[in-house]
């Protein structure tokens, strides 16, 4: 028979755990909303930017730009992994990290070495533990990424790519679908595919002659790095929103599990208590019976 006091202790332990997970769930719920509105407010810029890029690209059909140029060699790639600083969010981080590792293996099979840019403490820890030192790491910003971080990542890869040090850049991150769902995705960042630029063009209605200031080529040259920045920024924002979503789901199921555990422990507790009472009654009855016999 389990000890009554022990059971009572466990119930109160589980109850306080549930209190914590429930609070975390509510905090995450509030943060999802904020993260979502941050994605919303980044949208106008991204859309206008695409429109401008599309317009420019139409006039620079066979544009020559280092970021559009595919390198002949394929020896070194950079994988930007975007995860969170904190855990307790289910498979959010491990999905991305596993995907990034798979990507590294694929690249290795093609004879290319991979460098990691780690965004979020969880990625830094993961790769360090495996003896891989990230070429750049960003910490304590995963829940509120700003354009500064995006710019810094973009600048780094753009410079390395233009200098010919690396031959490709991929980004692995969680795309935010809705509060309950996020999808781990791999996105090719560099080289910028001509098709990306041209697809944007086709979507645009054909406009009359444009004036470029100072020139179409110069505009494109400025625009492409900004385009990369915008992509990175968007990924960071989506990942931040997904993180809160993932945490909310994880904490919700933790809370549910705790509730279930409390129910079953309470049941055990009641059974044990009833057992003890039955025992006592049996003893009293037995004692009384032995007295009557005298």
């Amino acid at each position, binding site marked *: 028979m389990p000890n009554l006091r022990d059971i009572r202790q466990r119930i109160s332990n589980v109850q306080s755990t549930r209190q914590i997970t429930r609070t975390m769930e509510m905090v995450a719920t509030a943060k999802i909303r904020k993260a979502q509105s941050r994605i919303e*407010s*980044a949208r*106008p*810029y991204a859309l*206008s930017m695409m429109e401008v890029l599309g317009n420019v690209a139409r006039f620079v059909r066979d544009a020559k730009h280092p970021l559009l140029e595919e390198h002949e060699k394929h020896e070194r790639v950079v994988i930007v992994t975007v995860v969170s600083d904190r855990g307790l969010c289910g498979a959010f981080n491990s999905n991305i990290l596993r995907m990034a590792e798979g990507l590294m293996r694929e690249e290795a099979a093609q004879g290319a070495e991979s460098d990691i840019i780690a965004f979020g403490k969880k990625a830094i820890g993961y790769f360090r533990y495996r003896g891989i030192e990230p070429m750049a790491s960003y910490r304590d910003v995963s829940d509120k990424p700003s*354009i500064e971080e995006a710019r810094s990542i973009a600048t780094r890869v753009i410079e390395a790519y233009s200098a010919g040090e690396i031959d490709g850049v991929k980004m692995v991150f969680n795309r935010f679908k809705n509060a309950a769902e996020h999808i781990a995705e791999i996105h090719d960042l560099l080289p910028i595919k001509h098709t990306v630029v041209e697809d944007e063009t086709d979507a645009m209605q054909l406009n009359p002659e444009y*004036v*470029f200031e*100072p020139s179409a080529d110069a505009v494109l040259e400025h625009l492409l790095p900004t385009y990369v920045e915008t992509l990175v920024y968007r990924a960071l924002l989506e990942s931040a929103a997904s993180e809160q979503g993932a945490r909310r789901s994880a904490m919700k199921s933790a809370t549910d599990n705790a509730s279930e555990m409390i129910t079953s422990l309470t049941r055990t507790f009641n059974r044990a208590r009833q057992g003890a009472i039955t025992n006592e009654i049996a003893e009293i009855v037995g004692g009384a019976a032995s007295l009557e016999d005298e």
Partner: protein
Amino acid sequence: MPRTLAVEIVTPERIVYTNEVEFVVVPTFDGEMGVLPLHAPLVGVLKPGEVRVKYGDTTDWFAVSGGYIQVHEDKVIILADNAVSASQIDVEEARRTKERAQERLKEIGHAGDEVDGLALDLDWAEAQLRVGGSHAQV
């Protein structure tokens, strides 16, 4: 009612300003450029500086840290890396940034990546000072 331009100033983080206006002035690399209604379609690169927007007797001033402008069918989109309206500029902060950047530039003294970054900071701070210093009351 005169013909107007729908102007929009957006940064990656938010929409800074939208309005129906009569005249827009932006800083391009070859100097200031004014846009009136019925302007030809245009895409241009902006350098750090001031953006002026006029309607009626009012003029709104903004500092931008560089970006792009697109004009199409009386719609003006200004894509700025960073933008603030004159009344929101923290002049003290901009002055400190400017001094820091200048000192640092003196320390380094030669060209390089950091210098490029600092030069941008410096331009941005100066643009804010110019706009914020003279038009903060608007």
